[in-house]
């Protein structure tokens, strides 16, 4: 029997600064190749968001102007989203979307732009002209990735994010949440928040499968996924590791 899951792509017309459709293409194809049908529903500004219909939310990043528009729109659903997350609703929130899930974004003058408050995460604007930019590699120990224990991509953010949850990974090279505490991203129940784009999922197929499995479980399907030929994926992944002078062995990266 075909297993089916439904993904809400929130505000694609505004939050697509870092090529989120790449993440969606990966989820759809990796699903299809295992007989899991992944339906993506774009939720545009003004559309009603029926949270109960979905097994995964994708929240990307936009420019400041676009993000302010989204924040206003999403406030209506803040309670629903928070409740969903507590019930293990999977969410992938990247860059601005990651910040938006938190309590607030604090501007240099101390003004706090409220977020959805779905998780206890806060972000503060960094010093002007000191964006955290570059290739990034972090550890990965959440899924069953066996010989792949890293996540790689590109980060480009001015905000410094802080929280006490589990990180998505420990920073090996790059800046991570804030350039200070060595954490990158967040994993809380079904939520993955991260500054890593590139986009995130094409070069990190283990993270894509982790999200697919969370979504399958959330929908009540068996979460088994067959292995795929991910030669190109790991080639691209390895390119970033090599560029960052990180040595890999049979057991992945020795950390």
């Amino acid at each position, binding site marked *: 029997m075909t297993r089916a899951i439904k993904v809400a792509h929130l505000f694609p017309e505004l939050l697509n600064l870092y090529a989120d459709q790449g993440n969606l293409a990966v989820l759809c194809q990796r699903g299809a190749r295992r007989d899991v049908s992944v339906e993506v529903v774009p939720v545009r500004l003004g559309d009603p968001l029926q949270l109960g219909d979905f097994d995964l939310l994708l929240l990307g990043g936009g420019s400041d102007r676009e993000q302010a528009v989204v924040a206003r729109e999403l406030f209506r659903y803040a309670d629903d989203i928070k409740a969903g997350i507590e019930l293990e609703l999977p969410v992938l929130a990247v860059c601005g979307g990651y910040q938006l899930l938190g309590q607030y974004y604090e501007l240099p003058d101390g003004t706090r732009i409220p977020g959805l408050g779905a998780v206890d995460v806060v972000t503060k604007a960094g010093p002007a002209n000191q964006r955290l930019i570059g290739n990034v590699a972090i550890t990965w120990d959440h899924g069953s990735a066996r010989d792949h224990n890293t996540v790689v991509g590109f980060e*480009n953010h*001015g905000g410094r994010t802080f929280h006490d949850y589990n990180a998505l990974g420990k920073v090996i090279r790059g800046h991570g949440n804030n350039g200070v505490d060595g954490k990158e991203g967040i994993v809380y129940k079904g939520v993955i928040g991260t500054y890593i784009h590139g*986009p995130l999922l*094409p070069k990190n197929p283990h993270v894509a499968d982790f999200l697919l499995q969370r979504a399958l479980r959330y929908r009540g399907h068996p979460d088994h996924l067959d292995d795929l030929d991910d030669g190109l994926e790991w*080639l691209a992944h390895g390119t970033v590791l090599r560029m960052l002078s990180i040595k890999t062995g049979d057991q992945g990266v020795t950390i």
Partner: protein
Amino acid sequence: MQMIQAIRASIAIVVSRWVATVLRWTGRAGTSLPGLVATRISPQLVHRLLRQLDTCVLVTGTNGKTTTTEYLHALLSQDADRWLVNRGGANLLQGLLAALLTVSDARGRLRIRRAVLEVDEATLPLIAQSAHPRLVVLTNVMRDQLDRYGEIDQTLALLNRGLSDPSVTLVANADDPLCAALAEGRMDTVLYGFSSEVATPGCPDGVRDGAFCLKCGAELTYAGYFYGQFGMYECGHCGFGRVEPHFTGRVSSCDGFRQLEVEEVARRTSIQYSVALGLSGLYNAYNLLAAVAAARTLGVAPDRLNEGVARFSPPIGRMQVFPGDPESVLALIKNPAGANSVLRALIQDPREMAVCFAINDQDADGRDVSWLWDVDVEDFVATVTCQRFYCAGTRAADMALRLAYAGVPRERVTVLAALDDVTGIACGGQVQVLYVLSTYTALHPLAERLPRRLGLRRMVSEEVHA
């Protein structure tokens, strides 16, 4: 203080001339290095030189700057006239200075006082005052892949600052809502665009940058479009919309020669003429139309346009054809909008092709390769007759993944270990053309290597004969 600056300027000129000489000896002429050195010694020098220009024309915008500049330079350089130009996309301060230094004497006086200069959007506000341009050509405003964060807003702010002098004539693309919004309300604006009769009816898909009205923020509606955000747009909320351009173009084809037909409207009379269009791709027709509009505004007679265009030699890597078996065509791709227009030109080519993407991630390419996922690769691979895809450059694997997720079977994608391997691509018998699409830093190395494809073939056939 004046004295010190003058001395610094003199030293800068001497040192940079020496650097330029050394570069010529070592066969590496044509870089911005002399300009870079001179800027370090005397940051004021570029402004001192720019102030001496009697007539300065600046070309800016996201895509098409280099080709438009070359076209315009060709159109303006009538027999006796000499215009300075900066070539090869050297459009930052040091590139402008390097070009100015080539026509400056040892005391910092310009021998040529007219210039067509390509200028980066961020450099425009820095030189707008000292260059005091007679005319600024604005090709388009699109998302570049460099530092994507909130970029369009920033670019528009830079352009607004660069165009703050109301006496400057702005030659702008009427089909681009972002360009047109910048042009609105100016004293002296010359608009160019394509004929609405050749527009594709309906609303373009996936438009991001021109999707919302710059005047009021409402969503724009389109009656038809040419490509990307270019089309017949209108804001239902505030009434902002496309106005009829002064120069309207359309591409026609006669005996295999492609022509740009131009209808020029001035003071309620209209004249028509056609100009030979050397380069393929609608985006290159836009570049020529922009250059024609600027040249006409500067007084070039319509019957002299074709002899001007005959002088045009396309900049490196703009659909540059290298003979071979099969021939190869090199094209620069540097951001989603530009890459999409190149892919659209490939779709128009009915020949059976092999395609190689050379993707680097140096600073000049953009270190973040996310932009590859914004390119409409799906549509391209579904339409085009392409047997094999090759990927080269530091981010070859990222591009290979992009192709795989766009639906290309993985066995038809080859990741090349080195850029050199591009010369060794052996196309199968039925392939009639090899397209090589390259980011900026791979472009020059490829332009050097692609002619060797011919050599390789020759060598092979000579061996067979022997």
